[in-house]
């Protein structure tokens, strides 16, 4: 038996998603841009997916642009706004705990005349809206703050940040890859101008995502060519994956969120009560993503716990990333103020809608066993 608890990295496909996709790999193979009969059903499927996704975030379907995934959408948001707003300025504000697809894109733009300000976070990973307010300049063109952090699950106050951006006339982008369908998102109420979404975190296919761009927001086209996606993102439509993305969004439910939240809190409480020296990275309760658990076990390297669990067919994520030859501490955990040794102790355990209590009881039993053992060595 394998227990998969790395659902922040990716999720198992939902069978209903696969069933939706299969016809577009076989009899409905037509190009969705073609005006002949073969293109009709694929085009319908794409528009249906667009409507479903738009409905989930309260925007217009025409404001959804399909991409190859979250990384492309994040690249597009930053580069597109930067190159389209040069007459206004070149300053971009983001945070120190963003996904690498934001941080590396910001770095690259920094080498191309952009000015980048990274806002720090507190010890639970929250950004302070006042820090953003203070960082705003006359030449600020974009503020990008992730909705929920992928490592520690902190849910950022995007409504307050959106309100600030609207007051100041600055475009607001949020990376919602982890929170999409798990948290309420309303582009109108939260004043979101651009938003990154993807499918494979919600039991949909890999290699497909979307960028929401509010109508009227200045953002350059990202890929030029055949004119797909209203001339903003050309390329032959990936119909099966887009249809699957729509289905995955459609079947995501509030009940799943409630169930994962309860299991998350059960797991944290059980492990903390049964072992000494357990620390939670990130906040407790409602301001934490429903499926995210990130713990540190003092005197136990996260990689060692990860390896031992892996041998027992329990799949989690170590907090440290493997660069070419050595482990580097997570930039998110160090941004919380943890020293390198503590950051290496972090592990991330992320649930799915199919995770159940019996599995978690089994995992807790093995974690206690392994941590006790590793601490004796």
């Amino acid at each position: 038996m394998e227990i998969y608890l790395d659902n922040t990295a990716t999720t198992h496909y939902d069978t209903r998603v696969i069933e939706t996709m299969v016809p577009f790999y076989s009899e409905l193979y037509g190009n969705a841009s073609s005006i002949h009969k073969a293109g009709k059903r694929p085009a319908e499927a794409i528009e249906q997916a667009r409507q479903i996704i738009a409905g989930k975030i309260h925007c217009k379907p025409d404001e959804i642009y399909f991409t190859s995934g979250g990384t492309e959408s994040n690249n597009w948001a930053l580069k597109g706004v930067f190159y389209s707003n040069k007459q206004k300025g070149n300053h971009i504000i983001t945070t120190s705990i963003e996904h690498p697809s934001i941080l590396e894109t910001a770095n690259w733009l920094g080498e191309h005349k952009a000015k980048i300000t990274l806002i720090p976070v507190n010890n639970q990973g929250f950004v302070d809206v006042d820090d953003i307010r203070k960082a705003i300049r006359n030449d600020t063109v974009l503020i990008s703050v992730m909705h929920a952090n992928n490592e520690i699950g902190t849910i950022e106050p995007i409504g307050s940040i959106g309100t600030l951006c609207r007051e100041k006339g600055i475009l607001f982008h949020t990376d919602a890859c982890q929170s999409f369908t798990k948290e309420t998102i309303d582009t109108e109420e939260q004043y979101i101008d651009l938003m990154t979404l993807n499918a494979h975190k919600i039991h949909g296919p890999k290699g497909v995502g979307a960028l929401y761009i509010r109508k009227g927001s200045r953002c350059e086209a990202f890929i030029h060519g055949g004119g797909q996606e209203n001339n903003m993102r050309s390329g032959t439509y990936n119909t099966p994956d887009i249809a699957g993305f729509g289905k995955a969004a459609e079947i995501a439910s509030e009940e799943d969120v409630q169930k994962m939240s309860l299991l998350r809190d059960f797991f944290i409480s059980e492990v903390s009560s049964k072992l000494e020296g357990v620390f939670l990275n990130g906040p407790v309760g409602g301001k934490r993503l429903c499926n995210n658990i990130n713990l540190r076990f003092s005197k136990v390297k996260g990689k060692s716990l990860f390896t031992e669990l892996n041998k027992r067919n329990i799949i989690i994520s170590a907090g440290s990333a493997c660069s070419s030859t050595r482990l580097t501490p997570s930039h998110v955990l160090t941004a919380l103020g943890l020293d390198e040794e503590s950051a290496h102790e972090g592990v991330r355990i992320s649930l799915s809608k199919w995770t159940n209590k019996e599995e978690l009881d089994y995992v807790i039993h093995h974690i206690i066993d392994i941590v006790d053992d590793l601490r004796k060595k």
Partner: protein
Amino acid sequence: MAKFKSDEILDLKGVPCPRNSARALLKLGGMEEGEILEIIVDDGEPLENVPASIEEEDNYKIIEKHKGEGHTWHLWVKVLR
């Protein structure tokens, strides 16, 4: 010197995790029963991860491991079946 003569050599110096493990398993998957693959990996994380990935498989056995030049290690892996 190694006690075993290798049938093939796979140099994974500079190949990051987890691509190094995947390439090792791909190479081993194309070899015949009884053959031996010598794999060169970097010290550090690759030395932890590549052997661990191989040992998870029932079909292969790491029969020898030596420190190589600089920050490298040599693994000799036998295809069991």
